[in-house]
């Protein structure tokens, strides 16, 4: 088979994220392309067995994988509530809802593995069933292949001699399910065991029990010859994938590692000033754990201090970063304006979530674009860019650092919940193969003649760093004299400086690769997107046999933007917001007509919906 989408779902205490992540990573190291979508409830821990507590994890594996898949081919439902949520999708709260292909999270021909031990009267009541036959009540079509397994009973049996208490035994159900799935997908059990041992390396006492249950689950599939066909996925043959070592990586971790790589490449210390905020916090977690790489993390007292401590570190000569999400970006606005005015390198990572205000903290959206571009007082240009896969968060974080350090400008890198929590297949680079980074440190010849307004031929000011003798200067958030670097309120000087700051950002275009047309370049229709929607739009463009023009660099835009877009009669800008990029493109390219397709539901696109929409035009 080309690729298969599998969805693990259960109670938030059932360990679905762990199970899903383990299966995905295992598949990645076996040579499958992967794309994952964790889908957890907003509550930390909703009451057990309830609909609100259902946690899901979807992974698409195989080759030609661009998205986590619209709908699952295989479902593992750990309880009655999970079965309901998967079957009814966003309609799970409607009392009379039945399976409907539009909303169901799995296909009409899916395999659904369920734990039959979790269909007691109490379980059904908690999940708000009205009858004792959930399948009939939900209208699960006959074409769906239901695989009932008494997961709980088997897990108890497996661990009966373990000496573990009942609660701990029940917690291992997910390993039995994982064992069954490993059998179903023909994953070698020894690799799975090895992986599990690595995963639990810090809690070795848990390894034997989990290995036992995992193996028993695998053997259960093997021996009882479940009446389903095993699914065989070949290693990816995608010729676009260069040789090298691959692993699976989540977007936030890839982002953090991109920053580390950039710091090591240019010999700067990596400094992160940050404040916990969903869904960006994992970047801080990862960097706080990377003291072995010399990373310095200050968990600041608030978002403002997050950016301001980073600005202090930038002033003092470090590669300085701050990570946040939408509400935090709002709070950081004034600080970012200071970094623009002081012309210091600064990398701001905004992991977008549903807004405005607190909005939908755990859901994905692309609604911070205009805030990133324009959300500051004064004429305040900076570089805005966006990652488009979980794995390329690494590359764009690295590029953000390079651009910031070489151009003495703040850079906002946009990712989002979908990229941050999702995982993808990442080719591991060596530090040597990454592009050189040359920070704009002031040349020693300027000793004694330096001021903070001095620029090079590209209009980039020089970075005089405290500790360097003969480069003492005063940096400011006030306007400075274009020649002397001291405070100035002169009208002509202000305009000169406004233009100088803009020109400095504009010339960053020389760092930006030309746009490439994906899909059918000869089509007269192009989908246009930016950031995390690339996979969905790529798949949709393939299905529609049209072109895709996808942006990772937003300010400045790639140099060939107008030339590329002018080739198409019809351009549909697809975004997870109400049309922010379309608005931006119209302002930059007033002669080109842009249509829009927008969704603002806190969810990634579904390829099917884009295709249907475009066909209906």
């Amino acid at each position: 088979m080309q690729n298969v989408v599998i969805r693990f779902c259960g109670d938030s205490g059932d360990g679905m994220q762990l199970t899903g992540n383990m299966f995905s990573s295992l598949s990645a190291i076996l040579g499958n392309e992967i794309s994952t979508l964790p889908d957890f409830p907003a509550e930390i821990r909703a009451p057990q067995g309830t609909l609100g507590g259902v946690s899901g994890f979807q992974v698409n594996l195989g080759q030609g994988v661009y998205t986590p898949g619209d709908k699952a081919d295989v479902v593992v439902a750990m309880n009655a509530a999970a079965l309901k949520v998967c079957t009814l999708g966003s309609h799970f709260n409607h009392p009379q809802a039945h399976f409907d292909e539009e909303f169901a999270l799995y296909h009409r021909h899916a395999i659904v593995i369920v734990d039959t031990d979790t269909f007691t009267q109490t379980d059904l009541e908690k999940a708000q069933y009205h009858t004792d036959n959930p399948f009939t009540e939900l209208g699960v079509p006959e074409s769906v292949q239901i695989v009932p397994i008494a997961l709980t009973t088997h897990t108890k049996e497996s661990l009966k001699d373990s000496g573990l208490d009942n609660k701990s035994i029940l917690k291992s159900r997910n390993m039995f399910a994982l064992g069954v799935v490993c059998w179903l997908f023909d994953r070698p059990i020894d690799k799975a065991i090895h992986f599990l041992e690595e995963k639990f390396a810090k809690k070795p006492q848990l390894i034997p029990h989990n290995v036992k249950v995992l193996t028993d689950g695998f053997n259960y599939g093997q021996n009882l010859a479940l009446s389903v066909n095993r699914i065989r996925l070949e290693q990816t043959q995608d010729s676009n994938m260069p040789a090298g070592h691959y692993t699976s990586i989540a977007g936030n971790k890839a982002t953090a590692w991109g920053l580390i790589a950039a710091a090591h490449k240019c010999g700067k210390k990596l400094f992160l000033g940050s404040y916990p905020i969903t869904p960006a916090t994992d970047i801080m977690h990862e960097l706080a754990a990377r003291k072995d790489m010399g990373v310095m993390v200050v968990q600041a007292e608030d978002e403002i201090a997050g950016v301001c401590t980073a600005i202090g570190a930038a002033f003092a000569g470090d590669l300085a970063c701050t990570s946040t999400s939408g509400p935090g970006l709002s709070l950081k606005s004034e600080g970012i304006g200071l970094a623009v005015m002081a012309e210091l390198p600064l990398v701001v990572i905004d992991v977008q979530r549903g807004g405005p205000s607190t909005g939908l903290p755990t859901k994905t959206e692309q609604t911070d674009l205009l805030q990133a571009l324009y959300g500051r007082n004064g004429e305040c240009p900076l570089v805005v860019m966006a990652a488009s896969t979980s794995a390329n968060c690494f590359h764009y974080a690295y590029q953000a650092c390079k651009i910031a350090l070489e151009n003495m400008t703040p850079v906002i890198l946009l990712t989002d919940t979908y990229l941050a929590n999702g995982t993808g297949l990442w080719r591991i680079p060596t530090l040597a193969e990454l592009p050189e980074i040359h920070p704009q440190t002031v040349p020693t010849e300027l000793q004694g003649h330096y001021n903070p307004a001095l620029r090079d031929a590209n209009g980039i000011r020089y970075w005089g760093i405290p500790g360097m003798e003969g480069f003492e200067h005063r940096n400011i958030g006030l306007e400075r004299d274009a020649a002397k670097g001291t405070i100035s309120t002169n009208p002509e000087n202000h305009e000169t400086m406004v233009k100088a700051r803009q020109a400095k950002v504009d010339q960053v275009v020389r760092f930006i690769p030309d746009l490439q047309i994906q899909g059918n370049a000869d089509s007269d229709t192009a989908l246009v997107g930016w950031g995390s929607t690339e996979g969905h739009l790529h798949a949709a463009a393939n299905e529609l046999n049209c072109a895709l023009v996808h942006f990772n660099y937003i300010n400045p835009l790639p140099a060939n933007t107008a030339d590329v877009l002018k080739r198409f009669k019809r351009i549909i800008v697809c975004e997870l917001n109400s049309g922010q990029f379309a608005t931006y493109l119209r302002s930059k390219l007033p002669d080109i007509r842009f249509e829009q397709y927008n969704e603002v539901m806190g969810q990634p696109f579904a390829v099917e919906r884009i295709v249907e929409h475009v066909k209906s035009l």
Partner: protein
Amino acid sequence: MEATQFKSDQYVRFCPGCGDHAILAALTKAMAQIGIPTHQIAVISGIGCSSRMPHYLSAYGFNTIHGRGGAVATGVKTSHPELTVWQMSGDGDCMAIGGNHFIHEIRRNVDLNVCVFNNRIYGLTKGQYSPTSPKGFVSKSSPFGTVERPFIPGELVLGARGTFFARTLDVDMPTAVDCMIKAHQHKGASIIECLVNCVIFNNGTHNWIADRETRADHSIVLHHGEKMIFGTNKDKGLAMEGFNLIVVPADDPRVLVHDAHCQDDILHHKLVQMGPENGLPVALGVIRDVEEETYDEAVNRQIAEVRAASKAKTFDELTATLEQWERK
């Protein structure tokens, strides 16, 4: 070194007669005595009259945004502990808009020397009450008098578990210079409340102690290890009675000896609270000066320890720890 070496070529724009001139003079004098070269000094400020200070000093300077000097300074010092970092702030900058950063730089004990210019007024925005203006204070934004209770900065510093607090007065140069030097010597967040006169909007706010005639009777300059004696004729002392400080004759055996190094801060609280409201002299000089590990030391120590113990130190060694497969 000479004080003039620490002055920049910028014209000083404080109003004629402003107390800030005196602080600038004291600071350059202190810096000359401390002897750290200008390129190893960073002076960070927020916004306000006080925050103009970096422009007048020949060190590295950064005049940032309102209230955020403390956060920026924390970033500078933590990332580069080898630098000597001064922060210039005012009563509004660090106790109103920057209150959060102020208490947290103190709580973390970042090794900063912080001058808080307290003139009990917003000068740069032309005369609104500040968090230290006395209740009932009439200003442009409180034409009928404020209804707010003011902060006592020393209480706030101690409440945030401060390790160093000193109070100085613009017209008392020797005490100011002495406190700045001691602030520099102290490892950790050293807060110096500089009582300054705003000649335009709040003239005479500190007259009760600034007045030459009465200063000796209305204030006491504390020195660690010395008896708490004050008065024109050095005839008065401070003693404890119950939980309160009282004024007694200087030869009373109960006269206290100042212990700035005492970890227990109860008496330091009592000292910072002294003033005309309770019939006691305003305490000047170093009131509290205790040692604890600083934040910047601790952060850098932890990184060094983890790094020393770790097998993976480079990016390539880090990626080698990943589960991976090879595509040939």
